[in-house]
């Protein structure tokens, strides 16, 4: 029999015993729904954890420091000192080299200064951090009150809420007001002791024009927003900043940084140098290659690659167990399919006899029962995915209400990706077909004479 005829007959048979077949299909749907709900919870929680960790900028980033540093973040104390003449300087050249590495999306320095800010005539000592433009899309500033920086070079600041609370009882009220940043600017010295310009002297002596002076400056910044979370959270003391500026704005301050003195003493330091650079890659799987390449260039690196691996392992095991528990319900549902089809064989014994008398082969009869089981699996799977998604939405809804009562932002804890939906439907069909194996074989084996005699 052709597949289309087989399908038509199967659907017709299912329609005839509508209540019983609907209940069986519903059983399959509940099984699939439990599987989908469980796995969507696993996927959702994994996505939530990944999202939160991605916002920290740790898992798709390599932190690079110069080997001149005594000890970089996450580094063990070195046993042997590297001669300063052989160390690589983390300067603009290095930054450009990193940017050319494959799968590198962004390289930016850490510009952080502990300095004084003034607000409404009161001075505060706080930590200021330049934020790269990528933080706009990364979700690091999700939930901001006010707005993100209007441009990458805007003279604007975003305040961490705890700091905003220090400035005003109503943190949101500071938005739009002006904050004055006081800092020390590093100004190149235009005249040397010999009376020549540093560049000319460098040309004559072969020495770098590394002389600079430090000048106190003030910068007025408009407060663009207030953020509850800490967008700068990270490793090695990167977090904890309370005033955030656009990175370009921070760079343009030319503020004197702790490494300036070290660079001043370093031979050959002719360009802007950095304490640390963050190299951001396309995805966590690109971290290893970037890290290896940067190490080969002679720099210290640090990443949380191993931590990511561990996290993935935990979630894989978590998903496996959720899937196993979800599958239990589907297994029970498959027993319902077997029961329904065995009952159908008893009821339709005579019909099977007639079909065989008319020339149906064993394979035709088997296929018909298979098609019925498969159809129940398909419809149960489709309905189950929708039901599972609804359960996930209900869980998210309930969790959000609970979190809001605890003054916490709502989270999406359930997520049904396309592969889970398709996989669940496919799995439902496979389980149903396996459940239909025995009834279909039994129906196919029926002796037509005995089947026709059946009343």
């Amino acid at each position, binding site marked *: *029999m*052709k597949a289309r*005829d087989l399908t038509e*007959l199967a659907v*017709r*048979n299912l329609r*005839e015993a509508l209540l019983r077949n609907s209940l069986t299909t519903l059983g399959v749907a509940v099984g699939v729904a439990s599987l989908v709900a469980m796995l969507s919870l696993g996927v959702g929680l994994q996505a939530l954890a990944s999202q939160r960790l991605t916002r920290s900028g740790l898992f798709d980033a390599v932190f690079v420091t110069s080997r001149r540093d005594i000890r970089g973040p996450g580094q063990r104390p070195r046993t042997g000192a590297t001669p300063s003449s052989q160390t690589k300087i983390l300067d603009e050249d290095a930054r450009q080299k990193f940017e050319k590495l494959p799968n590198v999306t962004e390289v930016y320095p850490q510009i952080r200064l502990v300095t004084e800010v003034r607000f409404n005539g009161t001075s505060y000592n706080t930590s200021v951090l330049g934020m790269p433009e990528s933080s706009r899309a990364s979700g690091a500033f999700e939930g901001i009150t006010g707005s993100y920086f209007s441009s990458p070079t805007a003279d604007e600041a975003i305040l961490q809420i705890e700091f905003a609370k220090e400035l005003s009882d109503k943190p949101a009220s500071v938005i739009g007001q002006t904050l004055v940043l006081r800092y020390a600017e590093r100004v190149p010295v235009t005249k040397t002791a010999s009376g020549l310009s540093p560049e000319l002297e460098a040309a004559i002596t072969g020495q770098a024009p590394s002389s600079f002076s430090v000048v106190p400056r003030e910068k007025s910044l408009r407060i663009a927003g207030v953020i509850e979370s800490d967008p700068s959270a990270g490793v090695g003391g990167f977090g904890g900043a309370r005033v955030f500026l656009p990175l370009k704005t921070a760079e343009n301050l030319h503020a004197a940084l702790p490494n300036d003195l070290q660079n001043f003493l370093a031979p050959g330091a002719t360009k802007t140098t950095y304490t640390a650079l963050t190299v951001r890659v396309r995805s966590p799987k690109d971290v290893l290659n970037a890290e290896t390449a940067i190490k080969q260039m002679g720099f210290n690196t640090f990443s949380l690659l191993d931590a990511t691996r561990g996290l993935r392992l935990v979630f894989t095991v978590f998903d496996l167990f959720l899937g196993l528990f979800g599958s239990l319900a589907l297994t029970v549902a498959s027993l319902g399919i077997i029961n329904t089809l065995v009952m159908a064989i008893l009821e339709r014994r*005579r*019909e099977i*006899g*007639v*079909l*065989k*008398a*008319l*020339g*149906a*082969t*064993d*394979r*035709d009869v088997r296929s018909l029962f298979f098609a019925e089981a498969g159809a129940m699996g398909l419809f149960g799977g489709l309905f189950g995915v929708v039901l599972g998604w609804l359960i996930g939405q209900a869980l998210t809804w309930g969790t959000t209400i609970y979190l809001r009562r605890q003054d916490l932002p709502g989270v999406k804890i359930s997520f049904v990706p396309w592969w889970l939906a398709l996989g669940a439907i496919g799995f439902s069909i496979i389980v149903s077909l396996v459940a239909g194996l025995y009834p279909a074989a039994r129906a196919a084996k029926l*002796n*037509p*004479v005995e089947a*026709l005699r059946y009343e």
Partner: protein
Amino acid sequence: MGFGAQHHTVAPAGSRRAHLRNRNFSPRHTYNLSAHTMPTDPTLIQAENVTREYRLGEALILAVNQLSIEIRAGEFLALLGSSGSGKSTLLNLLAGLDRPSSGAIHVHGHNLAQLNSEELARYRRESAGMVFQSFNLLPRMTLEENVELPLRLSEVERSERASRVAEALDRVKLSARRRHRPSELSGGEQQRGALARALVNRPSILFADEPTGNLDSVNGEQILLLMREFQQSLGMTIVMVTHERPLAERFANRIAVLSDGRLISSGVPQ
């Protein structure tokens, strides 16, 4: 395997079939195995020493016992016998619904006893039509869907099915009832529908197991008239089990009588 549907032609005037059409059957006759007149058409079915035994607990039941019979193409054979004589079992064996315990049944040059289940199904699908005492139309389907069923099984193209179904229903004069379900039809209509289903695939042989058993005399006669018309106009070979001797005598070309699984007489009604 070559069980392809045969081409049926209307019997020409003066032929054996045309002669049978106008034949008068005497109500009483005797059956003589040696004296019966065999049709001149070639043998279509040949059963040789066929035995069908069943085990019922410790007892071995011989439903058909060393039975041999030949059925000519175009013949209308009635199998008569008392209850339990083995006539339905023999019909099932000839129709390929059952297999003999021993012996051979040759149809179109193939021994049904040696065919596998797939080949037997093909024989039933392409060469044999079946009519039952209890009609056996599928209650969930309309009449035309029931008639279409053998065409689905034979994988006939959809475009061709509608015309074949309409033609078959037209032959049994049920075109107006094609959208009705079996429960909405009378017994006579159901059996006519079953006949339409049996002939829609244009088989060469029609097997009928007590086709008038559940019908009143008027409807029973109508069914047999239709069967005889199929035999004569389509050249079908008909093997019918019945216990209604008068009807068999009126419509069959030959009557074979069974008792205890053996053929005790076979002959032309006088």
